């Protein structure tokens, strides 16, 4: 596992390493934020320490020294905090946040194939400075360790650098014995590299090689005299190890020495048990987590969730996202073929074929549910970066803001998750910058100094809602209206008939910015319109409710999945169109006599409501070849509260289809959100009802 020993195997681990590092860094972030709120809670410091410690061990093992040295420094500071050697201050927290930022950058570099190197000197210096603020305590502690180490195994320990020591110590904590083995080959040994290989092979059956001196490369190239040293960890006894190596022929002498470290100071106990957690089997791990839970004096709700998450994760495996995408693509092909088969079986009217196809449809339906479920990711993956962002922004803006996240476990399709991050960032920035007022103004308005921003996610039917609520100033409707008129976004006549939320939604129009002064945070006049278009391109919609002086609520509605949707296929003259079921309320047949003529608009009376008729034939300029009959077939669709009746020629039926994009070239197509391939191999366009209803 260490550098150089098994370069090939390292690559295999790299992915796992990156994933886990990210998780640990995220945990650090979350706990740091928590710590900021409860600076006296040593339990949280312990959690952070644990994450940092694991991260250090992992990166040292993987050979990322900068990463390891920075985490090491961070760990020192954390250690001092939890042992009350340093008084915890917000300034320290800032530096730790900086360090975490650097760590994130390094992991990102490794992920993109970089070497994970970064100049971390300044942060390390700052950390060291914090640590030295209580240098007396620290140094004595270090001296102690060094002194005990001297006593027991001076020569051995000094030969390992910090990282190797960490690895050795960790393994010792996990019940392995560290050994240093000196092996001499016979003088007349001819194939020294072969013997070396055999020794390594023999050792690997017993434990793990940590280090070799000379290095493995040199040993393989026979760049050594007759003896070499291996640092090795194993659960076997010294004699067993010795006997095992002696079995290799031409080995002259084997000297196995146990490596002894000083006793860990008691304060390290906490981290040790954490390390053991990783190595223990699932059931025990849960027990440990649970017992820890009980030990805590005030087990908060969040902690309970963490334990649940730990249980949950033990039953999962990691799958590369690419593989899931390939699976999805293959399945999409299958759905298209299924459609084709269904059509063939209908045409042939063969009972057996019909039954088989029917069964297959059911099975693929189940398969589809499972595949789509597999692609579901909790919105947490997007939300978890916001607490830090909000903290930073609040500081930059000199505002006091409390961010509450509700429903982070709500799941969404991966493709949606990938796209939703940026729009949310925009909205949050907007809420912080323009929504929540400064503490002074809030006080003057009899509000609490600290503004509350709630980020909420929940499922409802076939949709996921993400809401951002703030108790800030709300939207100044007069100002917005004036601005919209000034910028020519709406006409004077139109302005009079707008509802309150329609006025509020004007801030999503392009080229709009009401901030009195342009700030870094938001208010560049681009942004919110991008939010709107991104969400609409995802098949979603955004609405705003706002009460002046009380706050605003931005509500985003998103489809659960993007790739396979249920549609109603309709025929308009010779052409087929697909209308997403998610927009449809119902279908109806309306007699021509029942159609009413409004001003510039034909309408029908639908369950007591006046609903405008939209003739798709005209809107889509469909070539007319058929005679009209006495009735209109209409599909009632909605966008938010508003309804419209789309007039078509006939209904073909309901079908699951694979949504395909029209490609970037045709992205301007009006009222068409995409296309799908039908059973007969032809392309049908998917109607974008949101664009049709104004």
């Amino acid at each position, binding site marked *: 596992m260490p550098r150089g020993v098994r370069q090939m195997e390292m690559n295999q681990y790299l992915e796992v390493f990156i994933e886990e590092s990210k998780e640990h860094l995220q945990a650090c972030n979350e706990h740091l934020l928590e710590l900021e709120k409860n600076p006296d809670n040593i339990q949280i410091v312990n959690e952070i320490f644990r994450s940092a410690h694991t991260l250090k061990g992992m990166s040292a093992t993987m050979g990322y020294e900068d990463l390891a040295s920075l985490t090491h420094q961070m760990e020192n500071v954390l250690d001092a905090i939890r042992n009350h050697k340093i008084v915890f201050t917000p300034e320290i927290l800032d530096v730790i946040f900086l360090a975490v930022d650097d760590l994130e950058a390094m992991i990102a570099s490794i992920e993109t194939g970089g070497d994970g190197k970064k100049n971390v000197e300044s942060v390390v210096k700052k950390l060291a400075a914090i640590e030295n603020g209580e240098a007396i305590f620290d140094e004595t502690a270090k001296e102690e360790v060094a002194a005990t180490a001297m006593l027991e195994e001076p020569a051995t320990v000094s030969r390992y650098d910090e990282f190797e020591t960490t690895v050795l110590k960790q393994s010792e904590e996990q019940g392995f014995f560290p050994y240093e083995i000196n092996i001499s080959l016979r003088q007349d040994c001819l194939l020294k590299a072969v013997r070396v290989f055999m020794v390594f092979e023999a050792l690997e059956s017993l434990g793990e090689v940590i280090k070799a001196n000379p290095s493995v490369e040199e040993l393989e190239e026979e760049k050594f005299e007759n003896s070499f040293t291996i640092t090795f960890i194993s659960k076997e006894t010294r004699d067993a190890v010795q006997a095992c190596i002696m079995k290799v022929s031409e080995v002259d002498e084997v000297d196995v020495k146990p490596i002894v470290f000083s006793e860990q100071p008691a304060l390290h106990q906490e981290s040790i048990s954490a390390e053991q957690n990783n190595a223990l089997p699932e059931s025990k791990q849960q027990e440990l987590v649970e017992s820890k839970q009980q030990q805590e004096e005030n087990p908060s709700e969040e902690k309970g969730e963490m334990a649940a998450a730990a249980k949950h994760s033990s039953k999962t495996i990691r799958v590369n996202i690419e593989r899931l995408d390939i699976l999805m693509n293959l399945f999409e092909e299958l759905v298209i073929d299924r459609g084709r088969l269904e059509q063939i079986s209908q045409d042939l009217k063969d009972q057996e074929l019909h039954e088989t196809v029917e069964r297959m449809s059911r099975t693929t339906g189940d398969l589809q549910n499972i595949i789509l479920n597999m692609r579901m990711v909790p919105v947490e993956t997007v939300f978890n970066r916001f607490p830090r962002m909000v903290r930073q922004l609040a500081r930059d803006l000199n505002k006091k803001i409390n961010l509450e996240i509700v429903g982070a476990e709500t799941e969404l399709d991966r493709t949606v998750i990938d796209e939703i991050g940026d729009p949310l960032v925009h909205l949050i920035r907007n809420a912080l910058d323009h929504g929540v007022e400064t503490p002074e103004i809030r006080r003057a308005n009899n509000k609490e100094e600290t503004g509350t921003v709630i980020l909420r996610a929940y499922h409802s039917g076939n949709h996921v809602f993400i809401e951002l609520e703030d108790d800030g100033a709300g939207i100044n409707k007069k100002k917005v209206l004036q601005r919209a008129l000034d910028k020519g976004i709406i006409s004077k006549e139109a302005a009079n008939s707008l509802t309150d939320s329609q006025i509020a939604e004007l801030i999503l129009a392009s080229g709009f910015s009401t901030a009195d002064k342009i700030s870094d945070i938001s208010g560049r006049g681009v942004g919110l319109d991008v939010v709107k278009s991104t969400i609409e391109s995802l098949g979603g919609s955004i609405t705003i409710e706002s009460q002046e002086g009380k706050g605003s609520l931005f509500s985003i509605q998103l489809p659960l999945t993007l790739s396979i949707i249920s549609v109603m296929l309709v025929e308009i003259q010779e052409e087929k169109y697909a209308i997403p079921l998610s927009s449809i309320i119902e279908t109806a047949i309306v007699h021509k006599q029942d159609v009413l003529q409004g001003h510039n608009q034909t309408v029908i009376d639908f369950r007591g409501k006046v609903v405008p008729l939209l003739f798709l034939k005209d809107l889509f300029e469909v070539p007319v070849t058929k005679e009209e009959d006495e009735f209109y077939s209409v599909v009632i669709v909605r966008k938010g509260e508003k309804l419209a009746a789309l007039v078509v020629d006939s209904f073909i039926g309901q079908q699951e289809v694979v949504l395909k994009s*029209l490609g970037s070239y*045709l992205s*301007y*197509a*009006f009222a068409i959100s995409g296309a799908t391939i039908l059973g007969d191999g032809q392309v049908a*366009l998917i109607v974008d009802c949101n664009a049709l209803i104004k």
Partner: protein
Amino acid sequence: MLESVAADTKLIIFELKGKEYAIPVHQVRSIEKMMHITRIPNIAPFVKGVINLRGVVTPIIDLRLRFGLDELEYSDRSRIIIITLNDMDVGLVVDAANDVVDVSEDVFEPSPEAAFGTEVDYINGVAKLEKRLLILVNLEKVFDREVLKNYVRSEG
């Protein structure tokens, strides 16, 4: 102007109203016979619609209409040339596509402005090949989305 054409290039030759046009073979993915095209409403007239090209929804434009020539009913000779442009697949309907030639770079000349008018930006130049005159098409300009934007209706 002709950087995209390396010395000794293979060109696909197609026919449009009796004239011969050429595009580099490396930009061509395949040549298809006419198939069902699904019309896209409210878009530029030269966009004929989309086809199902082995599972990929591919936009198709009629090159005659794009070049401002009169429309011709599709026949057995009509072909759809599928090209790959900036990672997107798009198709061109042409009167016929029936030749591949090797040419060296030195036969190309910038298009004589008088012949095509100054405003035409989708022609890269011409090549004289014995008695034939090949007109080199600039596909990037043919599929310029800005041109398409002008035709798009934004209100319902």
